[in-house]
């Protein structure tokens, strides 16, 4: 299993109110699975995604990524896990505006001492080629369309050759045609690289094309 979630609890405090976002959730994802996490607003799907992505810490329970229990890791160790094992695709693309397309995609690799500059270049170009943007290497993000930006984000997520890619509403800011293209791309990457995908979405077109659907409601899987 690439992802194992055991008895996960997470509570948020909003002023004097306590909100139990996750209540004893259990989940497993195998390598290469293309899985959608669906649920109503406030059901806890983003919280679950964040905990799996090691962007936050659970109050109780374990998150095991590629056999490593992340609950006891330090902040630096979690950073390493995120860099090596996990790729992120954000709803708003989250590209760095002062870096070119090439540099944005290269960003996760600059921390890797085991990757030489030549290897870095090769992997970036390959990732951009995979997403069909090899001719946009020196472009600036503000000169790209929404779909192109999301493809850059996907390339950035792929460039570290992660075991798992997490996407929170990856097509929410795109028009339907572009969203369709992105979905095709994600599926292609899933098949080509055997990367496990887990994403949240309300997009019916995306949901209809997944292998597996996980429904969540009131912090529990249903």
């Amino acid at each position, binding site marked *: 299993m690439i992802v194992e979630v055991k008895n996960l609890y997470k509570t948020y405090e909003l002023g004097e109110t306590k909100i139990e976002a996750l209540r004893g959730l259990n989940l497993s994802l195998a390598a290469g699975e293309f899985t959608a996490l669906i649920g109503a607003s406030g059901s806890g799907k983003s919280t679950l995604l*964040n905990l799996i992505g090691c962007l936050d810490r659970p109050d109780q329970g374990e998150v095991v990524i590629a056999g490593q229990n992340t609950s006891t890791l330090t902040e630096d160790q979690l950073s390493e896990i995120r860099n090596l094992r996990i790729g992120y695709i954000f709803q708003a693309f989250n590209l760095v*505006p002062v870096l070119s397309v090439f540099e944005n995609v290269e960003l996760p690799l600059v921390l890797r001492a085991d990757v030489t500059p030549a290897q870095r270049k090769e992997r970036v170009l390959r990732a951009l080629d995979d997403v069909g943007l090899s001719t946009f290497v020196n472009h600036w993000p503000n000169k790209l369309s929404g779909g192109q930006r999301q493809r850059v984000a996907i390339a950035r997520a792929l460039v570290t050759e992660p075991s798992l890619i997490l996407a929170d509403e990856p097509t929410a800011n795109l028009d339907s045609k572009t969203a369709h293209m992105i979905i095709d791309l994600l599926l292609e990457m899933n098949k080509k690289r055997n990367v496990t995908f887990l994403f949240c979405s309300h997009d019916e077109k995306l949901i209809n094309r997944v292998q597996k659907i996980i429904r969540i409601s009131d912090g529990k899987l249903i």
Partner: protein
Amino acid sequence: MWSWILAYRNLGRNKRRSLATGLAIGAGFVGLLLISAYLYRAQLALQASTVYLNNKGHLALFKKDSIFEFTYRPSRYIITLDEQNKIAEILKDLDADIEFTGRYLTGTGLINNQTKSTPFIATAVEPEVYNRTLNHSEVNTWTPDWVFPETVAHAGKFIENPKLVSITESMAILIGKEPPFSKYNEDERNIQLIGKTFYGDLNAVDSELGLRHTTGMALAEDTSLVVSLSQLQALYATDGIQYWAIFLKDASNIKRVQKELQKKIKEKNINIDVYPYYDDEWGAYYVGSLGFLFVIACFFVVLICGAVVLSVVNTTTLGIFERHKEIGTLRATGFPPRAIYSLFWKENLILSLIALSAGYICAEWIASAVNAANIKFQPPGTQGDIRFVLITKIQITLALGFIVLLINFISTMIAVRRTTKANIVNLLSASGG
């Protein structure tokens, strides 16, 4: 390399803010450099004045405990002729370090021109030494406007005529003999110095008005008188001296030479203390003046550094707020907290280096302009004007630059610290860039 590129490019995201912060750092640096330039020059001028013009020497030999007591009991604290001979032998051994030495005596009395008399506080000098101190290169370099040109030009006249006295313009007015003294005939220039010998007897010696000097201090102008050592010794009926000043070839050797002197004096069993010119008791004016300037400078330095810190913290904080999402993304892709620190610190470093370079050029230009303008002012308590001069020194500039960079670094850490500890999810869900 990438982080430097990213840092540099981030400066251009809000050019106006970067410019404002750069100006604050640059202006602060200019302020620090100019303050240090003034302090540096003031310190060197005070040093040259204290050592040479005030006849204190780099080191001075006194009878034990006599610095204050000599005035009340001169006969008890005089350095006798016998002791002087022993000291002379010791000084021979330190020839390599010593440029020259001078023996001095001070005392009080009345100066009288038959119709008027006024009190004096005399400094008795060896004529050759007096000539040498006034014409010293340190005096020419650092305090040329603290001494009358005529005083320097005529410094050798004591050698020709040891009966001459040098008085201030104030004293000359008090005794009704305004300078130039050359306009008076020999009889009119004759004056008498009256005082008590060290035995307590009334005594007087004939002297001649001939030279003019200034003390640089308004309080001392009415009573200051310079006379040759032999004259004052005759007045006080003594062959002793009050202190022996030592002028070194290299001022940086003061501590070592002082130690050696103390050791040799102890071996010879002479009851003598050795004081450097910056001693609290011996060099009180030097220490006090420099201390005062230092306190004032520190006050301004604290103000300037405070302004720089606030400016950097403000700018960095604003930048962080605007880039919460970006920081969250970097953290999400595996950047540890220290990498975020590093990114912002490098941004501020690049900005600081540019600002410091511009500030340095600006400060040098201002200093040159001020020096060329030949501005004169009269500090409180001084007699006459002195030139306002700014002198920069590369070591001080580098040290101050380092301090500014350090302040910058600390300010950045203060601003960034909270963000690096923030929850990544909160960063990612923030509005803005």
